[in-house]
C-alpha cells in the first residue's frame, strides 16, 4: 500500500487548479440568465409601449389625443378612420365569450371530475386521456377547419340535414349554425375544453382523500360527496383554469377567421335587420362598400331613424314604413339603448353573423393607411389590457390558493 501524501491532497481539495476561472464562469452565468429573462420581460414592455405609442396614448401623446376615447368604444367600424370604432367588435366578443363559457365550463368541469373521480382504469379512459392531451397540442386553426366543415357547411345548411327531420327544425337549426355567434362559441369552447379539464383534474386531485372518506362514511353517495365536499375545495383551482381558458378564447383569431367571422360588421347582433335599432343591410366588404351593390333588400322599419344610403345620402324614415333599400344602406335608429335592450333575445343573437375584437384588429392591421394602424393599436391595447388583467387575476388566485390552503 502506498502512502497518501495528506498535505498534497488537502492542498488540491482546498485550492483546485482553475477554481477561480470556474467560479467566475459560475457567477457570470447569472448575468446571462438575468439577461435572457430581461429580454422576455422587455418584450412585454416593448409591446405595450409600441401599442400605446401608436394609439397616441399618454405619455406618448398629449392627454386627450388618444385614439381610445368613448367615441372609439361606441362607434361601428367605418371606411372613415376618424369615425371608426369597436362597438360591434366588443359586443361580438362578449356574446361569443358568454356562449363559449356556457358550453365549455360545465362540460370541462364534468369531464375533469369524471376522469379524476369516476373513470375506471380501462382502454376507454386512457383513450380519453390521450385525446385530451393531444387536443391541447392541436393548432387552433384546425379547430376552425373542423367547425367550417361541420358547423358551417353541414349544420348551417338545411338541405344537408337528414330528410326525416321536420323542415321547421332543419331551418331553425341551420339558422343557429352557419357563420354565427353560436358556431363561434362552440368552436372556441372545444378549443379551451382541454385547459378546463386539466385544471379541474388538478384541483380535484389536490383535495385530500380524508374528505371523501368522511363524506362517504356518513352515508353520502359518490355524487353527493363530489358535489358537496370535493368541488367546493376544488373550485378556486377550477376558476383559475376557467379564467385562463376564457382569456385564450378572447384572443383567438384564426379559428374564427376559418368559420367566417366577418371583418367588417356595422350592426349589432342583438337585433335583426328590420326590427333593429342599429343595422346595416346586406354584407359590406372590408372597405365598407356593399358586396352586391345592385341588390336591394325589403326592410320594415321599426323605429324612427335615419337611413344612410351607400352614396352617403340620408333619408328620414319612420316606424312602420316598408322600404326597398340597396345593399350597404345603414339604418341608424334614433331609438335609445333601452329600446335596443328590449329587443334582446338569445334566439336572435346566437344565429347572427359577428365580428370580434381580434378580427377587428386584424382587419385594421392589414390596411396600409396609418390612421387605420392607429385604430389597430388602440384595439390591440384594449385586447391586451383585458387578457393581461384576466391572466393577472388567475396568477393572483393561484398564489392566494397556495398560501391559504395547507392540507
Amino acid at each position, binding site marked *: 500500500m502506498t502512502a497518501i501524501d495528506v498535505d498534497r491532497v488537502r492542498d488540491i*481539495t482546498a485550492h483546485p487548479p482553475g477554481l477561480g476561472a470556474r*467560479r467566475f464562469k*459560475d457567477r457570470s*452565468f*447569472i448575468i*446571462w*440568465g*438575468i439577461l*435572457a*429573462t430581461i429580454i*422576455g*420581460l422587455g*418584450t*412585454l414592455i416593448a*409591446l405595450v409601449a*409600441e401599442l400605446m405609442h401608436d394609439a397616441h396614448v399618454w405619455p406618448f401623446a398629449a392627454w386627450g389625443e388618444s385614439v381610445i376615447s368613448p367615441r372609439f368604444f361606441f362607434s361601428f367600424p367605418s371606411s372613415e378612420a376618424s369615425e371608426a370604432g369597436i362597438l360591434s367588435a366588443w359586443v361580438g366578443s362578449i356574446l361569443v365569450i358568454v356562449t363559449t363559457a356556457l358550453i365549455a365550463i360545465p362540460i370541462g368541469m*364534468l*369531464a375533469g*371530475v*369524471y376522469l379524476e373521480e*369516476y373513470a375506471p382504469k380501462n382502454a376507454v379512459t386512457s*383513450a*380519453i386521456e390521450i*385525446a*385530451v392531451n*393531444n*387536443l391541447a397540442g*392541436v*393548432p*387552433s*386553426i*384546425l379547430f376552425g377547419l*373542423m367547425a367550417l*366543415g361541420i358547423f358551417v357547411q353541414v349544420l348551417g345548411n338545411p338541405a344537408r340535414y337528414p330528410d326525416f327531420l321536420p323542415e321547421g327544425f332543419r331551418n331553425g337549426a341551420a339558422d343557429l349554425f352557419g357563420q354565427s355567434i353560436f358556431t363561434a362559441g362552440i368552436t372556441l369552447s372545444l378549443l379551451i*375544453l382541454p385547459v378546463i*379539464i386539466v385544471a379541474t383534474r388538478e384541483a380535484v386531485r389536490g383535495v385530500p382523500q380524508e374528505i371523501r372518506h368522511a363524506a362517504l362514511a356518513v352515508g353520502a353517495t359518490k*355524487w353527493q360527496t363530489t358535489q358537496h365536499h370535493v368541488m367546493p375545495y376544488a373550485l378556486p383551482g377550477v376558476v383559475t383554469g376557467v379564467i*385562463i381558458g376564457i382569456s*385564450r378564447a*378572447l*384572443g*383567438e*383569431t*384564426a379559428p374564427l377567421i*376559418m368559420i*367566417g367571422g366577418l371583418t367588417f360588421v356595422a350592426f349589432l347582433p342583438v337585433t335583426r335587420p328590420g326590427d333593429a335599432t342599429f343595422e346595416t343591410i346586406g354584407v359590406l366588404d372590408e372597405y365598407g362598400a356593399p358586396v352586391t351593390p345592385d341588390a336591394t333588400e325589403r326592410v320594415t322599419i321599426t323605429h324612427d331613424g335615419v337611413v344612410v344610403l351607400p352614396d352617403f345620402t340620408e333619408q328620414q324614415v319612420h316606424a312602420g314604413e316598408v322600404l326597398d333599400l340597396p345593399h350597404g344602406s345603414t339604418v341608424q335608429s334614433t331609438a335609445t339603448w333601452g329600446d335596443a335592450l328590449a329587443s334582446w333575445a338569445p334566439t336572435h343573437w346566437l344565429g347572427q353573423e359577428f365580428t370580434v375584437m*381580434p378580427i377587428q*384588429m*386584424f382587419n385594421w*392591421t*392589414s390596411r396600409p393607411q396609418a390612421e387605420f*394602424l392607429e385604430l*389597430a393599436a388602440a384595439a*390591440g391595447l384594449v*385586447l*391586451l389590457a383585458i387578457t*393581461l388583467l*384576466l*391572466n393577472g387575476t388567475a*396568477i393572483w388566485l393561484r398564489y392566494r390558493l397556495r398560501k391559504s390552503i395547507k392540507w
Partner: protein
Amino acid sequence: MEGLLFVAAALAIAIVLGIVYVVLSESTKFFSHVSVVEFLTSTTWTPLFDNPQYGIAPLLSGTFMATLVALAVAVPLGLLVAIYLSEFAGSRTRETIKPTLELLAAVPTVVYGYFALLFVTPLLQQWLRPFGIELPSFNLLGAGLVMGLMIIPYIASLSEDAMRAVPRSMREGSFAMGATRLETAFRVVVPAAVSGVVGAVILGMSRAIGETMIVVVAGGQMPQMVTSPTQQGATVTAFMAQVALGDLPYGTLEYNSIFAAGLALLVLTLMFNFIAFWLQRRFREAY
C-alpha cells in the same frame, strides 16, 4: 349522473375524431382531383391561379423557416431562463418571474402580429441595412423572431419544471465532488432532465408550426420556396387563413385545398407530438 360525466369526458374523443374526419374527408375530395404525387413533389403552390398548381412544398418551407427562426430565439433564451430559475435564482425571484414570463404566452397572437410587422421588422430593417440586406416589409425573420419570443415561456416553464424534478441528492452529489452550480446544471441536471427539456422544445415547436396570426400579418402571403428567413413566404396556416378570409364557394377545389393544407398541418403536429412522447419514454430517467 355518472353517464352524463362520461359523455362530457368522451366528448374529447369525439372532437379528435371530428377534426380527423373533416380534414380527411374534405382532403379526399381534393386528392381525387390532384394527385398525391403532385401535392408532395411540386414546388409551386398557386391554387388561385387560372392554371393552378398544388405543391405543398412552398408552404412547408415557409412554415419550417419561420419555426426555425422561432426556435433559434426561444431555445437558447428559454433554456437560459430555465437553468437560471431552477439552479441559481432564489425561490422568491422564481415565484415572481415565472408567472410574469407566462404572460408572454397569454398575449393574443394578432397583437404579436402587429408587433412583428410594425416594431420588429422596421427595427431589423434598420439593423440589417449596414450589412447590405434589404429586408422586405413582410418577412419570415421578423415573424419568426416574435414567434420565438412568444414560445419562450412554454420552453422555459416546462424545462424548469423538468429540472426541478431532478432530485436534490443528485445535485448534492455533484457539489460534493467539487463542481460549481453551473457545472452541476450542465453536466448533471440538464442531462437528467433531458426528456422533459426535449418535450418542452418540441411542444414549443409544435406551437410555432401551428401559429397563424403572426405569420399572416407579418410573414407575407406569397407562397414560394423559402431559402432565407429574410424572404417573405406563406406558411401552411397563413394560406388557410388567407383563403378563409375570401369568400370561397363550398365544394370547389380551392375550398378543398385548405383542408389538404390542414391535413399536412395535422400530420406535422401529430408527428411532433408523437416524437416528443417517444423521446420522453425512451430517455426517461427513473428515480
